[in-house]
């Protein structure tokens, strides 16, 4: 029955009442323990940080930080984007990323960027699909994993309508 039917995917904001969901996801997804600043930034970013729900289960998230650019204006730094392993390949990551890209263009934010480990080819090709480009390589960015280097991926958003 349900298998044939589309399961609804919805997004919800992060608040202090449910921030533990984001922590649970990060614990499961990333080999890193994030500090309080990460969560404070995520909460402060408002709509730029979202949890993704697969029917009623929280299975993924995108967490961003809004940064002031030199010379005014904002840019978006994607701190984390991840979906629980069993729920990958269902378009949930795409939905999360598209949400943030849409939000950027609505608010006339022209730049978003993120770090990714140099050997993480899946992630790199995923972001390239959305128009991200490698703009820099940082040596020895990571301390405990190999390779320790990362790429800087950036997407410049040209104003679509105005």
């Amino acid at each position, binding site marked *: *029955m*349900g*298998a*044939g039917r589309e*399961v609804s995917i919805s997004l919800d904001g992060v608040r*202090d*009442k*449910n*921030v*533990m*969901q984001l*922590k*649970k*996801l990060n*614990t*499961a997804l*990333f*080999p*890193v*323990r*994030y*500090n*309080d*600043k*990460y969560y404070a930034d995520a909460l402060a970013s408002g709509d730029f940080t979202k949890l993704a729900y*697969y*029917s*009623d*289960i*929280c*299975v993924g998230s995108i967490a961003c*930080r809004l940064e002031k650019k030199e010379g005014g204006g904002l840019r978006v*730094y994607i*701190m*984390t984007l991840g979906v*629980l392993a*069993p*729920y990958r390949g*269902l378009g949930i990551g795409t939905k999360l990323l598209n949400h943030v890209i849409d939000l950027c263009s609505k608010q006339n934010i022209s730049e978003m960027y993120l*770090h990714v480990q140099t050997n993480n080819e899946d992630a790199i090709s995923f972001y390239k699909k959305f128009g991200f480009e490698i703009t820099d390589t940082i040596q020895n*960015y*990571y*301390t*405990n*994993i190999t390779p320790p280097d*990362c790429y800087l991926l950036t997407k410049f958003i040209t104003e679509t309508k105005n």
Partner: protein
Amino acid sequence: MGASLPPKEANLFKLIVKSYESKQYKKGLKAADTILKKFPDHGETLSMKGLTLNCMDRKSEAYELVRLGLKNDLKSHVCWHVYGLLYRSDREYREAIKCYRNALRIDPDNIEILRDLSLLQAQMRDLTGFVETRQKLLSLKPNHRMNWIGFAVAHHLNSDGSKAVEILEAYEGTLDDDYPPDNERCEHGEMLLYKISLLEECGSLERAIEELRKKESKIVDKLTYKEQEVSLLVKLGRHEEGAELYKALLSINPDNYRYYEGLQKCVGLHAENGLSSSDIDQLDALYKSLGQQYTWSSAVKRIPLDFLQGEKFHEAVDNYIRPLLTKGVPSLFSDLSPLYDHPGKADILEKLILELEHSLRISGGYPGRAEKEPPSTLMWTLFFLAQHYDRRGQYDVALSKIDEAIEHTPTVIDLYSVKSRILKHAGDSAAAATLADEARCMDLADRYINSECVKRMLQADQVASAEKTAVLFTKDGDQHNNLHDMQCMWYELASGESYFRQGDLGRALKKFLAVEKHYADITEDQFDFHSYCLRKMTLRAYVAMLKFQDRLHSHAYFHKAAAGAIRCYIKLFDSPSKSMAEEEEEMSKLPPSQRKKMRQKQKKAEARAKKEAEVRNEESSASNVSKSGKRHVKPVDPDPNGEKLLQVEDPLLEATKYLKLLQKHSPNSLETHLLSFEVNMRKKKILLALQAVKQLLRLDAENPDSHRCLVRFFHKVGTMTAPVTDTEKLVWSVLEAERPFISQLHEKNLTEANKIFFEKHKGSLMHRAAVAEMLFVLEPNKKREAIKLIEDSTNNPAPINGALGPVKEWKLKDCIAVHKLLGAVLDDPDAALRWKVRCAQYFPCSTYFEGERSSAMPNSVYSQIAKKPENGDSSHPEGGNIADFVTSNGKLEAFKDLTV
């Protein structure tokens, strides 16, 4: 009123009454004082002044004045009425009734007093009195609808339904044909439905249905109309019409179980009479056709699982479960759990779900289906399996299933709640509390998981954190009293039980008595409805409410609270708290300098406490005066820790109060009579103890505790000295007469009876323990033998459908009781230790037995919570850094970051 006074004062008196009614108490008081200056002995004025003061929270003065007023004017109905009102305000209804009666003797037709009296009589269930008063009211004011209805209800309550019907019909006779007007239609319809339910109750079924149909147009509540009609049809044996009507009702609500039940009865396929296999086939066909009609109904799919067997059950439950696992219904297991009491169904379920699990793992879909399931289906399947194995007592499998589910999707809160429950069942309350707290942190806005966490904390005796967690959801935030005001009984019971376990009898009693108080309040709360319901004509609901109130104290929470309080009092009696004298004695043992210091300290503390109390009282009285008449600030609890409760003079007398309520309202509970036995043995009330023993034998003679009481009783009686006084002789003769009727002791002494009991229940641990304990009571020199009896018990695998399953028979709770018996009663620490080591193997998660997987052990997973180093900060906060270890959700290492 106010007669015998000159006109000026008489007017002032009227002003007092008016001020009282409009709650302007200060004004009334002033007027009263003016009269009293001239006529200091005027009885009615004194009374009214007292009544006014009563509303200003000056109770003792109030009683003094009202009594003085009455003394000065015994012939005044006002004085008696006021006295009654005073008693009523203090909930002393019996006394109040007496006062009203006296007032009516002087002024028999006073409607106000009659009405007040009738309310009290309804409240106190003085039913004959209630009928009388209602009759009087009707004869005085026959044009009031309420008086007719009140008279009818009074007769109904007094078990004269047909009289009630007559009265209602007489009342209808007074109405015009076009009655009711539009704004009275609901009330009138309710009255008619009440009348018809009365006819049904009296067995006048034909008349009832005739009347119902005749008045159809005047009955507003169409659903109740149909339900009443079908109930009458069934009772009249008109099953075909009944079946049709039930089908019509089902089309209104196809999820109402009672309609299905009724329909089954009408077509002669009710489980009550036992179902043959052809019956089952017919039922199956019936539900299949109903299912096609009501595709959205879940009841129509669920009910067949109750009656289907074997292969058909397998097929039906398979069809039932699949879509719900796909959808993700967290309550699926609770929905199906009644099936575990049906022989064989649990095995079918286990096999089925394991097949689904296997297929989901291999192909991602259900067996025989090409379609892939959503990824969550596997997680819900594991979730179900965990609860399944928990229910079957296979805690290790249950834990591995739930851990796998958490690994799969660590964000589902229900998974953590279930893991917490499994751990509790396995005997690790501390770990269960930690898991429940983890669940709570995942949604801080969910009251249910918050409450569940509080419960687990209390089960783990973490009262302080439980309190802190509970108040997160109370209105007043820090005010923990708010839980009492909300009558949060599960909390009070769980916290009372925790205090009891920890030996804090004062606080335990405080909580148990709080629950008892709620029940008194609930009884009290019906008072307002006696007048309200008659006025609003909600008569069926009113009578149902009264019936509910009559059996209120048989409710499980009351039972628990009363039993808890009685246990506290028994313990208090056995080991009384330190008296003043003893404290003095201890003090005198200290060196003089220290003694002086102690005294000073005590005095200071007392003074401080007194001052604080005064300040608080002042505050509350100040706010009282300012808005007198309005709801006033509650006085501060002078005994928050229940210390005063511990200082009762006679704990057993207190216990008896609650025991009586249990005996009256829970006469079929073994526990009631066990407690009665314990209390009365201590009170040396031999015959009452005998009564308890007889009740125990009546309820369950084979119960180990019944056996214990029987043996202990006659052993005790056997050691008593020969009777001297007449009373003793009388008691003796009763015992002589009763003993032959107890078959267990027929021509046997106690040792023999104990042996026979043993032979009968050789295979059961708890029976063996009881026999061992009694052996030791009867022959203390046979202690070794008693211990051997226990240690020789074998923990056999529990049979499941004739085959031996993976779970052993002994229950954790029982093994703990046996351990306590070995240690505390048989007083053999070595045997207790041996028992503990043995049980630690049976219950590896038990903290009590320090099983190797329990959080009590230093190297278990659960004890590592506190030891992991904090490593949250890293040089690259945004995803650059690899931490030293990978945490996994729900495995308790992750706990330290739960403090949100």
